[in-house]
């Protein structure tokens, strides 16, 4: 059975496709690698597979899509054992744990464009991010019906791009990955968790949408241990 045909019709209408094709044509400059990790019995993996194939197609080769089963290496690295997980960028600096549907849709498209251009678009304060001496993970926990969430995710994604590999931005969809939401006792979104990767330590930074400057400062402070 071909999943592509099963969903294609409902994921994106012809008008949506035309809109996205034009957006990608106008705004994407370079190429961007996107990797989708899937697993057996995963509810949204097929949908994501179809969606990303369509987006890759609309990007006229600028999205370099690979789709693979989540292997042991990734399971250990990401501390996850199921999909869908989407990794964007040469350093896989942008991660979507769970599918970017609902309100997240528009910010996901925006992220693809930014990552292809390696342009973060932060207004200010971005220089500090290049010289971080530790790796930081920004986890933004979201639900598909939260209109504030995509703004928080886009902010974190911009920070990841600006950091040139030091910051990983991970958008976690709470319904598909309740174990992650539970780990941080999240019952309201967006919740932003900041973690230093080694030695591992993490904590909830804020519930709600921070200002750009606040989030950048929190990232630099997390590294300097202030």
């Amino acid at each position, binding site marked *: 059975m071909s999943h592509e045909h099963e969903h294609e019709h409902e*994921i994106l209408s012809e008008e949506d496709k035309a809109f996205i094709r034009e957006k990608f044509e106008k705004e994407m400059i370079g190429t961007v690698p996107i990797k989708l990790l899937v697993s057996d019995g995963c509810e949204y993996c097929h949908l994501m597979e179809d969606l990303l194939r369509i987006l890759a197609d609309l990007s006229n080769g600028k999205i370099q899509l690979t789709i693979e089963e989540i292997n042991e290496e990734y399971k250990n690295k990401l501390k996850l054992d199921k999909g869908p997980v989407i990794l964007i960028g040469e350093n896989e600096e942008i991660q979507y744990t769970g599918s970017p*549907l609902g309100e997240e849709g528009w910010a996901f498209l925006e992220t693809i464009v930014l990552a292809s251009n390696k342009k973060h678009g932060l207004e200010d304060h971005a220089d500090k991010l290049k010289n971080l001496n530790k790796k930081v993970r920004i986890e933004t926990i979201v639900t598909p019906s*939260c*209109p504030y969430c995509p703004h928080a995710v886009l902010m974190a994604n911009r920070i990841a791009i600006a950091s040139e590999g030091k910051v990983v931005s991970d958008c976690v969809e709470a*319904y598909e990955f309740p174990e992650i939401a539970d780990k941080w006792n*999240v*019952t309201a979104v967006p919740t932003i968790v900041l973690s230093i990767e080694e030695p591992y330590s993490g904590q909830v930074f804020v519930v709600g*949408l921070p200002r750009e400057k606040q989030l950048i400062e929190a990232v630099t402070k997390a590294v300097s241990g202030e």
Partner: protein
Amino acid sequence: MTVRTHVVIIGGGPAGLTAGIYTSRLGLDTILIEKATLGGQVAISPFIENYPGFVSIPGPELTKRFIEHAETMGVQIKVPETVIDLELKGEVKKVYTDKNTYEADAVIITTGASRRKLNVPGEKEFAGKGVSYCAVCDGAFFKGKTVAVVGGGNTAVSEALHLTQLVRKLYIVHRRDDLRAEVALKQRLLDSPNVVPLWNTIVEAIKGDTVVRKLVLRDLKKDEVFEIDVDGVFVAIGYAPNSQLAAKAGVLVDEKGYIIVNRKQETNIKGVYAAGDVTGGVMQIGVAVGEAIVAAMSAFEHVTGGWYAKKKALKAVKIDFEKLKTKEKAIEEKEKKSLFKFKL
């Protein structure tokens, strides 16, 4: 960066977006600044059943239509960007945000209102750990669980109605013995099988460990304190206007903090207007929209010196009707499509 424009609108709820549609169509360069999400409170309203033309429409859907409309008319939208200071008294108004400075001939304040907090022990501690102020965003964390909605107005009841579809049991905690909400909403809620009203009751504290576990309540009639087990608390006990910045800049507000305006939506400062929930009164979308239209017209008069005496060179009002048509289609399509639709 400093940007010069005709009009700055502060807040992107229904009032702000409407004001933008009007000032843009009147040919004024319009910048709208929104700190959180366009649509304001409508973006998080489960459904709207009293905005003419729509028997029932989800808040997020109405929001998308407002945004498309404002964008098509050429409003320059800055989101997320937060206004942090204002200088309004001079001829050129200055609006300082966390990112830029804007200079404008007129400012329209449509900053709306925020939920009032309960101000009880535990509320701060458990914010985001069981205490929530947005049922649309957070409702599904409580699937199959027990929650309490505190409040008895339209907001409380429409959020409670949304939650009844998800939770096992819902307490509605209200300090009076009847809901203040529209009858159409009230009856539906009280008829829901999983709803337990607790009348004449107020919250005294929120208790828990890593997350919320219990509410400490006081029965006002019996003057007794008792506890109920809950997994979540949704707070909807009323509103406080977002008028602090305006007041600091010299805009007069009433004793509750609502901005004082006249029938032209003028504040006490020339060239400064306010509309929507921030001015109090009947806090509804239709009212916000209507007041915003008046504010936009007044701002236009102020900037141009009237319809005939156009002091300033205004950009030609050019509306691309072809673009409009495709946008209209796109909106229709969006209702059907799933990428931007909710999974739940």
